[in-house]
C-alpha cells in the first residue's frame, strides 16, 4: 500500500531592480527576505546539521563541499515563518519553500501564500531602495538568455520502492506531463531549436536523464537523497523538471496527478512499458510542439504522442483507483485529468482559463493581433515576462484572475490565512505553532527538527522524523499545556 503523498514546493523567483543594471542580486535578495518582518523569525538559525545535498539516491555520496554559512550569514539568509515555511536566499534568488501539506489543494493555498509573502517583502523594500529604483519579482523559470532557476516539487515516498523503478516508470510521465503543466514560453534558449512559443519554461534546459546536479547539466530526474525524515522509511522525491505555475488549476492538477502516479509506482501499478528511446531529446521536442501531434519513439518500437503517453498513465490510474481506498482528493484529480486530456485532443484553447501555457498563448495572440506584432516583438517577450510579475496590479496573470478569466481552485481568504498559519495535518503544524508560541526560545529549525535554547541553557533539539506526526490532532493538547519551551520539552520527555 502506497504511503500518503505528503508534498511541498520550493519556488525560486526571478529578481531585478529597475534603473540599476549593476545591482548585486545576492545583496538584494538578503534585503528582500529581511524586509519581511514577522517576529520572531528574524533571529532564528536554519539548522544545517541534518542537511546532505550530496547524498545520491543511487546509493553513493557525491564529492563536493557542503555549504554551511556562519551564524550571522545564516540568520541574514534564512527566515523560518510561523506558517511552517522557509523563506530564504538561495544563490542569487529569493526562494520560498512552503510547509509540508497532504493534498494538492492545500499545496495551491500554501504556494500562493508564498507569492504574497514575497510580494509583501518586495513592497517593504521600497523604503530601503534609492529614489527611482524598484525591485521587481517574477515567478518564472528563465531569463530567455540561457539562465534558469527552478520550481521544485517534493513528494514523500516509501524507501522500499527502488529508485531504478521510480526512474523507469516516471521518465515518460515527466517528459509528457508538460502538455498540461507547462507555464508557456516565448522562444527558445540553451541551444535548442528556434521556435515562436513552447509549452514549458524549463524543457530547453534538461541535458541528461538522471543525475544529482540541479544547476549544470540538469537531469530530468534528480537523485538528491535528503529525506528530511526517517531515512530508513522514507525518500523525498525531489522533482526539478517542472515549471513555476501561476494558474491555481495547473498547480492543483500537476501536484495531484504526479502524487497519484507516484503512489501507483509504489504499488506496482504503473508497469506498462512506456520507456522512451531518447527522453532528453523528447522533453525538448514535446515542449516545442504546441500542436501536440509529435510522435515519440518508445524502446518497445511503439510510437506515441505525449498526449497518448498521458492517456496510458490515466488508464493505469483509473484501473488502480477502481479497487482501492485512495485519498479523498483522488476522484476529482482523475476526473479533471481526463477532461484536460480530452480537451487537449480536441482543441487546447478550450483550456484558456485553466492551463498556464494556453492562458498565456491566447493572451499573447490576441494582443499581437490587436497591435500587429509578431512573436519576435519585444512587447511579446514582455507579455511573457509580465505574466509572471508578482505585483497584483501589474502582473498579467493577476489581471486575468481579477477579471474572472481564469479558474480558481481556492479562496482568497484561505491564501491570506496561510500567510501566518501552518497546515494542520503535518509536522508543519508543530513547527509553525512552536514559532508562534515559543518564538523567543527557538534557536534553530530544519524540516525535521526544531531546537530550543533560550539564554545560556543547553540547546534541546526535538526531532520530527515522522512527517505526518506533529499535526494539530497530535500535538494541540501538548502545546496548550506548555506555557513555554522548557515546559514543552519537559512535557515531551515525561
Amino acid at each position, binding site marked *: 500500500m502506497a504511503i500518503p503523498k505528503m508534498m511541498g514546493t520550493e519556488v525560486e523567483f526571478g529578481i531585478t531592480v529597475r534603473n540599476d543594471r549593476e545591482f548585486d542580486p545576492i545583496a538584494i535578495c538578503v534585503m528582500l527576505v529581511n524586509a519581511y518582518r514577522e517576529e520572531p523569525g528574524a533571529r532564528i538559525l536554519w539548522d544545517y546539521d541534518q542537511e546532505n545535498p550530496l547524498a545520491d539516491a543511487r546509493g553513493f555520496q557525491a564529492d563536493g563541499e557542503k555549504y554551511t554559512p556562519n551564524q550571522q550569514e545564516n540568520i541574514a539568509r534564512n527566515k523560518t515563518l510561523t506558517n511552517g515555511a522557509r523563506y530564504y536566499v538561495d544563490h542569487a534568488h529569493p526562494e520560498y519553500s512552503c510547509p509540508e501539506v497532504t493534498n494538492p489543494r492545500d499545496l495551491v493555498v500554501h504556494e500562493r501564500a508564498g507569492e504574497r509573502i514575497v510580494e509583501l517583502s518586495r513592497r517593504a523594500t521600497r523604503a530601503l531602495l534609492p529614489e527611482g529604483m524598484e525591485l521587481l519579482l517574477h515567478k518564472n523559470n528563465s531569463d*530567455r538568455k540561457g539562465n534558469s532557476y527552478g520550481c521544485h516539487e517534493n513528494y514523500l515516498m516509501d524507501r522500499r520502492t527502488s529508485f531504478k523503478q521510480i526512474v523507469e516508470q516516471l521518465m515518460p510521465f515527466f517528459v509528457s506531463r508538460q502538455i498540461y503543466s507547462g507555464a508557456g514560453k516565448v522562444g527558445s534558449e540553451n541551444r535548442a531549436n528556434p521556435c515562436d512559443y513552447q509549452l514549458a519554461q524549463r524543457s530547453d534546459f534538461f541535458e541528461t536523464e538522471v543525475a544529482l546536479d540541479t544547476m549544470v547539466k540538469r537531469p530530468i530526474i534528480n537523485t538528491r537523497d535528503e529525506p528530511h525524515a526517517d531515512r530508513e522509511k522514507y525518500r523525498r522525491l525531489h522533482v526539478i523538471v517542472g515549471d513555476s505555475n501561476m494558474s491555481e488549476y495547473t498547480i492543483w492538477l500537476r501536484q495531484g496527478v504526479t502524487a497519484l502516479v507516484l503512489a501507483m509506482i509504489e504499488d506496482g501499478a504503473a508497469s506498462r512499458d512506456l520507456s522512451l528511446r531518447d527522453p532528453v531529446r523528447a522533453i525538448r521536442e514535446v515542449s516545442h510542439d504546441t500542436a501536440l501531434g509529435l510522435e515519440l519513439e518508445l524502446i518497445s518500437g511503439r510510437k506515441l504522442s505525449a498526449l497518448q503517453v498521458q492517456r496510458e498513465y490515466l488508464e493505469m490510474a483509473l484501473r488502480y483507483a477502481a479497487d482501492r481506498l485512495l485519498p479523498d482528493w483522488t476522484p*476529482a484529480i482523475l*476526473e479533471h485529468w481526463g477532461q484536460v486530456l480530452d480537451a487537449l485532443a480536441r*482543441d487546447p484553447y478550450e483550456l484558456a482559463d485553466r492551463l498556464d501555457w494556453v492562458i498565456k498563448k491566447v493572451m499573447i495572440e490576441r494582443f499581437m493581433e490587436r497591435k500587429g506584432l509578431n512573436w519576435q516583438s519585444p512587447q511579446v517577450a514582455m507579455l511573457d515576462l509580465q505574466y509572471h510579475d508578482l505585483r497584483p*496590479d501589474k502582473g498579467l496573470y493577476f*489581471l486575468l484572475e481579477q*477579471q*474572472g478569466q481564469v479558474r480558481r481552485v481556492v479562496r482568497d481568504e484561505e491564501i491570506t490565512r496561510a500567510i501566518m498559519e501552518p497546515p494542520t495535518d503535518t509536522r508543519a503544524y508543530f513547527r509553525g505553532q512552536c514559532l508562534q508560541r515559543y518564538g523567543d526560545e527557538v534557536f534553530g529549525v530544519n524540516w525535521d527538527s526544531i531546537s530550543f535554547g533560550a539564554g545560556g541553557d543547553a540547546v534541546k533539539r526535538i526531532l520530527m522524523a515522522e512527517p505526518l506526526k506533529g499535526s494539530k490532532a497530535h500535538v494541540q493538547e501538548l502545546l496548550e499545556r506548555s506555557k513555554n519551551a522548557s515546559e514543552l520539552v519537559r512535557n515531551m520527555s515525561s
Partner: protein
Amino acid sequence: MKQTKTTIQNGADLESFGVLRAAEQERGQKRKSGGGDGDAGGKPAGGAKLASKGQKLKEDMDSLLDEIDEVLEENAEEFVKNYVQRGGE
C-alpha cells in the same frame, strides 16, 4: 450526459467563489456564461458549447487587452534586454 458537480475537497465548491464574484462586480464587468467560474468544476458541456468555448474565451479577452496595454511595461525592449538572471537551484 453526466451533470455531477465536482467538489474539490474540503468543501471548496468551484462554483462558489465569492471572492471572484466580488472582484468582477467591483469592476462592473458583465460576464457571459462559460467563462471563468460559471460552469467550472467539471460539468462536461455539450459538443456545440465546447466547440465555441475556446473562441468565446478569446472574445471575452478583448476587453482585457486595453487593460493589458495600459499596464504593460512601457519600455519593453530595454526591460527585456536587461532582464538577466543568474542560474539558480
